[in-house]
């Protein structure tokens, strides 16, 4: 890596820290002026200030803002220390589509269990994720993808006594 590369790396890193600090400060201001008043109900009479339900949230929010400010000053005025991020491992060439698919499957995990039942959802998502990860052997895809979720389901339901949602298959059990 040439010196100019390190320089641009540094400048990028520094800019990232500054953006982070500014966003955090903005968030804490937003929190203090809008979210806390809207989200915390405070009773009419409070004997001591620390007894109020809003006391700690305000103190913490101010703390976050303050440390973000310190971080901002540090990022602007002090030399940047590059993180130990192993840049050697770059992102996957198709990372955007991969992430999109992952998010889709996570949403499936959130919405489907109550309709399709947890075991079926787990089977579908597990097979899909293995396929995205590069597995092509049908035996592994179907074998592992079906057997493992079913076994784990049986363990949860019968050993740990956690009845996972069954959705459509409710009446089968």
């Amino acid at each position: 890596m040439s010196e100019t590369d390190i320089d641009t790396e540094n400048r990028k890193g520094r800019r990232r820290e500054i953006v982070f600090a500014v966003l955090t400060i903005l968030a804490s201001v937003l929190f203090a002026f809008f979210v806390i008043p809207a989200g915390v109900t405070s009773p009419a009479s409070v004997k001591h200030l620390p007894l109020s339900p809003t006391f700690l949230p305000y103190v913490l929010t101010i703390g976050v803002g303050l440390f973000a400010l310190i971080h901002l000053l540090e990022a602007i005025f002090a030399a940047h220390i590059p993180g130990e991020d192993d840049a050697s491992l770059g992102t996957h060439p198709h990372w955007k589509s991969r992430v999109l698919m992952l998010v889709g499957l996570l949403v499936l995990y959130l919405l489907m269990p109550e309709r399709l039942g947890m075991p079926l959802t787990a089977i579908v998502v597990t097979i899909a994720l293995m396929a995205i990860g590069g597995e092509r052997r049908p035996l592994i895809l179907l074998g592992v993808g079906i057997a493992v979720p079913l076994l784990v389901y049986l363990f949860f339901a019968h050993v740990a006594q956690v009845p996972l949602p069954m959705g459509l298959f409710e009446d089968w059990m």
Partner: protein
Amino acid sequence: MLENIATGFEMFFTLGNLLAITAGVCLGVTVGAIPGLTATMAVALALPFTFNLDPVTGILLLVGVYKGGVFGGSITAILIRAPGTPAAACTLLDGYPLAQKGQAGKALNMALYASCIADFLSNLSLIFFASLIAGLALAFGPPEYFWLICFSLTVVISISGSSLTKGLISGLLGLLTSTIGLDLVYGTQRFTFDNFNLMGGVSYIPLLIGLFALPEVIDFYVRKVAPFTVKTADKSRVSLAELKSSLVTIVRGSFIGVIIGTIPGAGATAAAFLSYGEARRTSKSPETFGKGNIEGVAASEAGNNGVAGATLIPLLALGIPGDVVTAVILGAFMLQGLTPGPLMFQDNITIIYAIFIGIMLSSVVLLGSGKLAIRYFARIADIPRHILLPIVLMFCVFGSYAVQSQMFDVGVMLAFGLLGYIMMKIDMAAAPFLMGFILGPLFEDNLRRSFLISEDITIFFRSPICWIFIVITILSAFVGVRRELRATRAKRDALRSSGAA
């Protein structure tokens, strides 16, 4: 006395008791290793089985489950960064990096040795000093507690990772997250926005699993190649020299565990982090912590297992359950017609001795079944990542659901997984967030309780214990911050000189 001990021995040495301990520990290790299924849950599940057993056997079964569960949590923490039980969250800080370096075997074994040694020391304290240190449980009123928590919070400085300010922000965000739910004193809503699922607060285990395990899964799909495959075939073991050099850390961690365990309600997670913070503070190479320092694994496991025996101290000596697990064990005692407390030492001393003998033995059983568990669980690491991670994700989902049988918690897990991933990307340590989240309610509750008990602010300085913790809190914060600043300056100096060269 000797006669009692002899009778105790007689009472203990039955096949049933030995089987109960072994079965208990094995069940505990297995359940504990699964994210979402905690030691508490395992103990509650085992409780109905004790109804028809005799008292000693029943209690030993539960104690076995508890101890196995506490260790079991570290297995998945090390292998897949998903702590099986909350108390193992600290173990992953160094355990997982070790696994990434292909030294999973070493990390697992160190976790086991530290657990067993700590467990043993904790049991010894239970047997010999129970009556002596039980008083500690009652010496901690709200103000003393408040300062203890303040001291614990200074550990955040030690686990902040590369940037102190970011670590502190992370800790504060954790504290802030812990305020979600119904207010303790007034019962008013805080940040729940009329959502009934949030009224009890954000559940702890989904948050934990999401914060630590999920980012690894997400990262796998973003990165170019599989970052690593853990190889257990590496046969890495703990060398005698490593064990020796970690011994001080383990013993110190055990005693931190014993003290925290004796104080009701403080919990194993706090003990693990305190022990870890201490180990890092006294280490010659603090910068290697969090990057796969074997001593870090030893420290946190010693801390959380040191708690296990000690939580029985207030239970047996005073009849006070310090946490949910001991509350269940208290229930088991009462179902057997026994009432833990000073009276039990008078009336049923042989039963107590029999239980003590069993508890001592449980450390040995833990070593054996732990070795066995490591051998089989470690195979997990041989599974290729693209097959393993979808299964990890499934466990995260199942486990989050299991805690309260709520789909909402699966959502919580995914949300904190996303947060954890963002924090990973911006180099913000997640451990302080967890620490803040755990200690937040204890901090606020005791602050406010102190004000409720006394109108007077001097209540915060009412006892020597308060003063001790005030002093060590200030010292710890000061020393910690100074150390971090120095480390940063040293890095800058190194950078400048290399830039100049």
